């Protein structure tokens, strides 16, 4: 076997591509494109040859900004910034926690669990609950208690309301209607 073939084979084995749900991912990306959610304003120029320079201080992946910054709930004093009532995907994160329960409505109808590594979009917030969409899931909006977890990332693409100790201000399960439906 030639060295070229060995390199190819070794890379194939070392970096196995993970399968994706092409249908849902295509829909997700199309929606984001349609909404103009291509990332942060400080995103580097999309001309690759020029993208590497001068942008180190302006890193703008909202997802990366949130990645690793998702922390356990109850971290009083943490400053969080969340969108209020925005109907579209506004910020995103990758969960660093496992076993986060999700509900069909705030406090009602537990529908499942989010796991470590799940990617979500935060599409709204109300009274201690976050409306989120699991990127790889059905795309349906579900709700998570900020007591369970809250992101420490900001929300660059939406209206911002800064709330100190937001996670600690959880008011418990509510009987309110779904705020973003």
């Amino acid at each position: 076997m030639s060295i070229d073939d060995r390199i190819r084979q070794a890379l194939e084995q070392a970096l196995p591509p993970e399968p994706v749900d092409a249908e849902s991912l295509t829909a997700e990306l199309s929606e984001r494109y349609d909404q103009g959610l291509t990332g942060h304003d400080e995103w580097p120029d999309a001309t690759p040859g020029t993208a590497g320079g001068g942008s180190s201080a302006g890193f703008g992946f909202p997802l990366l900004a949130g990645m690793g910054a998702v922390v356990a709930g109850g971290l009083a004093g943490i400053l969080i910034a969340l969108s209020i009532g925005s109907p579209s995907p506004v910020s995103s994160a990758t969960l660093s926690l496992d076993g986060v329960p999700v509900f069909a409505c705030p406090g009602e109808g537990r529908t499942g669990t989010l796991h470590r590594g799940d990617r979500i979009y935060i599409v709204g917030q109300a009274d201690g609950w976050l409306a989120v969409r699991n990127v790889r899931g059905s795309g349906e909006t579900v709700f998570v208690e900020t007591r369970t977890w809250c992101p420490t990332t900001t929300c660059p693409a939406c209206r911002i309301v800064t709330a100190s100790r937001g996670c600690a201000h959880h008011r418990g399960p509510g009987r309110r209607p779904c705020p973003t439906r």
Partner: protein
Amino acid sequence: MTMAATKDQGRAAASGMEPEVAATIRAFVEHEYPRVVAVVGHATGDPDGAEDAVQDALLKVLADGHRPDRLGAWVTVVAMNGVRGSQRRSRAERRATDRMGTPSPADPGSKAVDRVSVLAAVGALPEGQRTSVLLHYYLDSSVADIAAAMGVSEGTVKTHLHRGRASLAAALGEIA
């Protein structure tokens, strides 16, 4: 017309998106996305953030009006540049280095050793060589595509590939 193409056209019609964009997104997701994510994850040492980076890069490339025939190399380089601009980069690379560990002595007959050795060797390559090698050997990008994506000449890419290949051959216990 395939069912997927019909869906894309319907989606485009409903949203006002150019049908070409919808088809481009689908083609990229179906044919190039998983490998591009793997390359970006490895090259940046941040596999957890690679998906986000690639998705953002794709959307940014499309939003800026770029329509290269093969998006893979283009999106890969944009995504890698974005990740590298992050202040998180150094931390992520340290994690990746820790995971990579010290390569075992090469055993040309062992696929497992090939895998470890080639990853470690690729990780140790200078940036230009690493990017060129991953695009060429893993994404099967042509020299011309790589050059266009990296914004360098084809000669530079050939040099990167030649040197990178020599380093990888040494790591795999062969003479290039």
